[in-house]
């Protein structure tokens, strides 16, 4: 159902204390989009993601989920909205005292009425979807960085969220795993109509999965482009955007 707004960002300023990182951000993430937040290092991509998911207050502006202004609504509504998110953090952020199965089962135990047997089945399915079938009883300290990331994704998908947020999903993954992750993101979008918001500067991945994007320009301290990243690569007249999307080669 592309076209229906899932997230609307209006006049958003973000920063730390008196330091303004980005100002006047305005964009819409449609339902079913794979939306890429891109820009050079230090431009505030991860900060914007934190504002979208409720981990950091914006300096000014609105983040609308449906008709609800996320940052001015009451805590209960905010929590209800957050329950529709799945978030994959840069390092996976798995709880180290729990096995992979327990990591994925926790949100299922908290928010569903599934019986333990059914939860085990969902856990196995999620791990299988990220290529970790059979690793249920492993602790995060017993698996590699790439596997942690995939397990983090399995946990993010546990409740089949409406919106999945990914912070640098390809970082630390081998090329094959990275491609499989891209395929999975597209599959989730096609099959479950999941909206995906990705922070990334991996060009190959951006062009493969992204159909909408925003470019945060660290020099201008605001967004200087938005839209389909492939079209931006071909048509953007902004030199910074063009340099970024062509790795500065042209």
């Amino acid at each position, binding site marked *: 159902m592309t076209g229906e707004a899932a997230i609307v960002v209006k006049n958003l300023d973000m920063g730390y204390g008196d330091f303004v990182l980005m100002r006047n951000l305005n964009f819409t993430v449609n339902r079913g989009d794979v939306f890429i937040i891109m820009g050079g290092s230090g431009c505030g991509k991860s900060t914007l993601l934190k504002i979208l998911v409720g981990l950091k207050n914006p300096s000014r502006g609105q983040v609308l989920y449906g008709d609800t202004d996320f940052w001015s609504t009451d805590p209960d509504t905010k929590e209800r909205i957050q329950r529709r998110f799945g978030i994959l953090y840069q390092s996976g952020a798995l709880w180290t005292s729990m096995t992979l199965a327990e990591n994925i089962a926790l949100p299922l135990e908290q928010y569903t009425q599934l019986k333990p047997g059914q939860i085990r089945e969902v856990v196995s399915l999620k791990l299988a979807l990220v290529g970790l079938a059979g690793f249920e009883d492993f*602790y995060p300290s017993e698996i590699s960085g790439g596997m942690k990331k995939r397990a983090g994704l399995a946990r993010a*998908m546990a409740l089949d969220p409406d919106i999945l947020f990914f912070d640098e999903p390809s970082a630390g993954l081998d090329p094959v795993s990275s491609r499989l992750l891209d395929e999975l993101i597209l599959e989730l979008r096609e099959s479950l109509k999941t909206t995906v918001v990705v922070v990334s500067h991996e060009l190959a991945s951006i062009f493969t999965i992204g159909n909408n994007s925003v470019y945060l320009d660290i020099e201008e301290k605001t967004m200087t482009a938005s839209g389909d990243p492939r079209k931006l690569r071909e048509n953007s007249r902004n030199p910074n955007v063009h340099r970024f999307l062509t790795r500065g080669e042209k």
Partner: protein
Amino acid sequence: MLKLTEPDPAGLSLTTPTADRLLVRLSGNWKITAPLPTAFDVGKSFESNKGIRRIAFDTKRLGEWDSGLLTFLIKIFEGCSNSNIEVDKEGLPEGVRRLIELATAVPERKGARKEGKKEAFLFMVGEKAVAFCRSSLEMLDFLGEAFLAFTRLLRGQASFRRSDLTLLLQECGAEALPIVSLISILVGLILAFVGAIQLKLFGAQVYVADIVAIAMVRVMGAIMTGIIMAGRTGAAFAAQIGTMQVNEEIDALRTMGIAPVEFLLLPRVIALIIMMPLLCIYADIMGILGGLIVGMGMLDVNPIEYLNRTQECLTLTTFWIGLFHSAVFGVLVALSGCLRGMQCGRSASDVGYAATSAVVTGIISIIVATAVITFLCEVLQL
């Protein structure tokens, strides 16, 4: 706009259009947030009708779906595979088919699954004994490295940052004053209270000053400061170094040719060796002050008289024994914290375990050291 799912419950009906074909009709919303039918009913159909050789699906009335439907179907497919029943997936939504294909695309890695096995009691005892020996060896190894680091320090060849030492002196010293003050005054109060009750019986209230002064200055001031520092600073050392282990910062030091034990341990031990005796003197004064409060408030002892008694009963030997205790405790607390930090695993829970372990090791070593020093003082008639 995010839509709230209508509570249209998941439905399951089974029919057999032909003798060898089972048709599974799915209806409603199959979402994991609501109660769902289980694959058990389908399994019962197989058992009751042995002639079924094929299974098909009708999803015309299927609403929204998610992993709840996928897990249900995977369970059915497993059952069909075990019973050699052919599965016709044509009736399933395309998205469902693709996701199931994706889930089964990467086969389970051989040997990945951990088998739950029950160990024999003797095996577990053996494991514990081996782990204890390994831990003791690690401790000896660490002490050896610490000794070498100190010899390099004495030769002026040790490498650590002087700014680290300054910061640690501040953390271990000035920042510990509030908690040392509180605990020491309370210990002085308690000693005076306990002594006063007995001394009152003999009309010898003024000797409460002797009890408090000798106990605090000889050993209690040092012990209490040591225990405070084990809980406060020893745990902090273990957590800091443990977190460095988790973040591979220790590995980075090693690969740069910097000995981690020397770089991390020396400033911490030096800081505590310098600050512990000073904190101990401070704790002694606070303890005596606590005793004075009880002496004045409960026993009507004149403060000048109390301080005179305190001065008379304290000898320089008592004072030096107290300071020696505190210096030893400083070394033990620093070594315990750094040892447990260096032994820390690679996860957040390991850092917590390292901090706890550092406190336990610190306190035990303080008590053992006190016993040894007390025994030596007795032998040397000090």
